[in-house]
């Protein structure tokens, strides 16, 4: 017994020393260290500031461009024949010209593929061609960032989209790139289809009710970027969907999204609900003019994985009438969305999310089946030993 006490004292002392050494946790500031060994080069502080200013200028320039575009769009619509709901022009170095024929036909195909004909809210698309020879007196236009002006900031029936086409498509439009034309054209249709963004929703379902619109504005329309994303591809669009979960970088990708989105990946209705309804407010406010700037560049962190197609999928799931009831509702967003889905928002979203990413397991809890089988095997092993021991003989 004395020896037992001695060992207990030794153990408790060792643990107390450890507790004194490590509690409370030391804390640390973020190292910013890359997951990979060698870090990639970063701009200096001054360069980062210049880039931030460039981004602010792009925002202001896009807003200006949109507001200026309203008058030009009025002209175009005046000239357009009755029933025209989509007009397209291109712009290069602040000069507006007719859209390249290939872009015009591609966007009209995209329009038809989205099931849009004559719509209450018209859409005017301005394809911003890249300036091929680089200019140094102003920031270059980023291809992945599009800007939109809501109908209430124009004539109430026209949504304007400014889509920078980037070097690749600009050269394609100018006939400098025709490699694999049929496939490139298909890709162009898809690019312009997703480029229509919020304007496609305005065209399909009209102007949303105040609560829904304020919710989407507060979130930067991240849940309504693609009206019809089509069938779920085998590979998905995000790193989380592309990465094999046996590898550590799968979890790097998972933990790079906000906690509510991670919880939603684990099929937790509360997390899904919080991730989807973030931004919904009881006192909705909408800016005027209602300018939307949407960044589609690779690497941006989504609030919900595959969120860009969320409302498109909701619309397809519940049907046009129920979706329109939600879209134009005067009720709070959560109530209206639950009514349209006929299910709690969290549960529906958890099911929808699991269609893209097989639910992940959070925390240390082991799979219940595994525990049961493990315990059964443990019991079996002990029973086996019991049986063999009863047969044991001394020879």
């Amino acid at each position, binding site marked *: 017994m004395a020896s037992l006490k001695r060992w207990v004292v030794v153990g408790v002392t060792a643990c107390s020393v450890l507790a004194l050494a490590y509690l409370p946790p030391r804390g640390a500031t973020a190292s910013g260290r890359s997951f990979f060994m*060698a870090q*990639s080069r*970063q701009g200096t502080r001054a360069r980062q500031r210049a880039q931030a200013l460039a981004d602010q200028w792009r925002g202001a320039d896009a807003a200006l461009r949109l507001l200026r575009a309203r008058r030009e769009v009025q002209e175009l619509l005046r000239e357009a024949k009755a029933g025209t709901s989509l007009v397209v022009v291109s712009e290069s170095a602040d000069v507006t010209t007719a859209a390249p024929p290939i872009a015009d036909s591609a966007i009209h195909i995209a329009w038809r593929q989205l099931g849009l004909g004559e719509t209450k809210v018209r859409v005017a698309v301005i394809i911003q061609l890249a300036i091929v020879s680089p200019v140094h007196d102003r920031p270059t236009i980023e291809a992945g960032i599009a800007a939109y002006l809501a109908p209430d900031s124009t004539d109430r029936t026209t949504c304007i989209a400014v889509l920078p086409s980037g070097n690749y498509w600009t050269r394609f439009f100018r006939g400098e790139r025709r*490699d694999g034309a*049929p*496939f*490139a054209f298909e890709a162009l249709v898809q690019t312009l289809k997703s480029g229509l963004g919020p304007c496609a929703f305005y065209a399909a379902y009209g102007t949303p009710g105040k609560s829904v619109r304020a919710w989407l504005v507060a979130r930067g329309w991240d849940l309504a970027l693609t009206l019809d994303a089509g069938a779920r591809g085998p590979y998905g669009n995000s790193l989380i969907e592309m990465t094999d979960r046996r590898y550590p970088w799968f979890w790097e990708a998972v933990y790079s999204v906000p906690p509510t989105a991670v919880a939603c990946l684990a099929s937790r209705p509360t997390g899904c609900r919080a991730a989807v309804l973030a931004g919904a407010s009881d006192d909705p406010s909408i800016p005027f003019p209602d300018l939307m700037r949407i960044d589609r560049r690779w690497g941006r962190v989504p609030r919900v994985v595959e969120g860009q197609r969320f409302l498109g999928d909701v619309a397809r799931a519940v049907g046009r009438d129920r979706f329109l009831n939600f879209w134009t509702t005067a009720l709070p967003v959560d109530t209206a969305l639950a009514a349209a889905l006929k299910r709690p928002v969290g549960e529906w979203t958890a099911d929808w999310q699991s269609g893209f990413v097989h639910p992940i397991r959070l925390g240390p809890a082991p799979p219940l089946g595994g525990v049961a089988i493990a315990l059964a095997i443990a019991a079996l092993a002990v029973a086996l030993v019991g049986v063999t021991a009863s047969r044991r003989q001394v020879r």
Partner: protein
Amino acid sequence: MSRLLGLVLAVSLLPSPLRSQDSLVVRLRRQADSLLGTWREAQLLADVADSLEQVRATAGSDTIAVGGLRIIVNPSPLPWREAAEHAWPVIDSLYGSAAEDLSRHPYIFRAVDPDSGVRRTVLHVGVELPWDLDVRATATLLLTTVNAPRFDAALADWLGSGLRPTLHPQSERAAVFVQLLTVPSEAVRACFLGDIAHCKDVLQLGDSIGLLERWYATPAEREALVASSFTDYFARGATAPSLQNCRQHRDDACTSLLQSLPPGSLPRPLAHAARILLVREALRAGGRDAYRRLVARPSAPIRERLASAAGMDIDSLVARWRNAALAARPKPLTLPWWAGFAAIGWTAFFGLCALRSSRWRL
């Protein structure tokens, strides 16, 4: 009362909104202009900051000069000089007189603690690498980061990769030999058997008309190509029926599918190692100025550039390339000198273990 106000407002505001919009435009324009001005100043400052950072990052660093190589590195246990002395002759033998131009673009490296847990300062300039590399690894790093002088896009497109020196020319040749022997293409087979015209075809030195039929001559090759490389690509959309027909041995379907591929995306029968070997042979044959001649006329057809670099007609160059590849037939499996000793050593070790086993001590 508020209704009256609303009514009055409605009437009074009818002409005003565009005015209010115009003032907004003016305000936005002013904001954009001032942002643009600030951005221009910030750009100038950033350029200065970058150049200062360049100076700061290289201050207290050693500059190692070996031949045309200029390497600026922070103090570290890395064997830079030995590595540069290994790398320079290889670089010089490839680029010849053009290698001297490399001295205008010094390399900046920062050696860091390989322990990924150690905090490091942010990298603004140069390339980071762990300081525990040996001479060979460091030399390989220098060879793989060297930029070919005046290397043009046309040459890069044809080559399908960069043109860099190698420490393993023999294994590169051996790889080409294996390709010539094993690639399932009649054209490559003909090239292997000595048909120089087919060699030029598979190296894409001729015109690009009818490339598909010349690279993949038989229906079986074309079907195999679709099946092995493009099943997923053609399985969706309008091309799906043609894919089905192709799988049912309909050559017209396979050919039309492959012809619909973007130019440049038809898989080359020979991987880029074959083309790199051809360029190396041209440079070896052409002497120290061969590389300068190779990059002198980027607009000229590749075959002419290679011929002028090698100083011989293209057929002779391709024949030389083929001979170099055939001469590199990989050696059969041989035991390294230490294998015997290792086998005996391990046998002895386990034998001793067996003798010390407790079962002998009962």
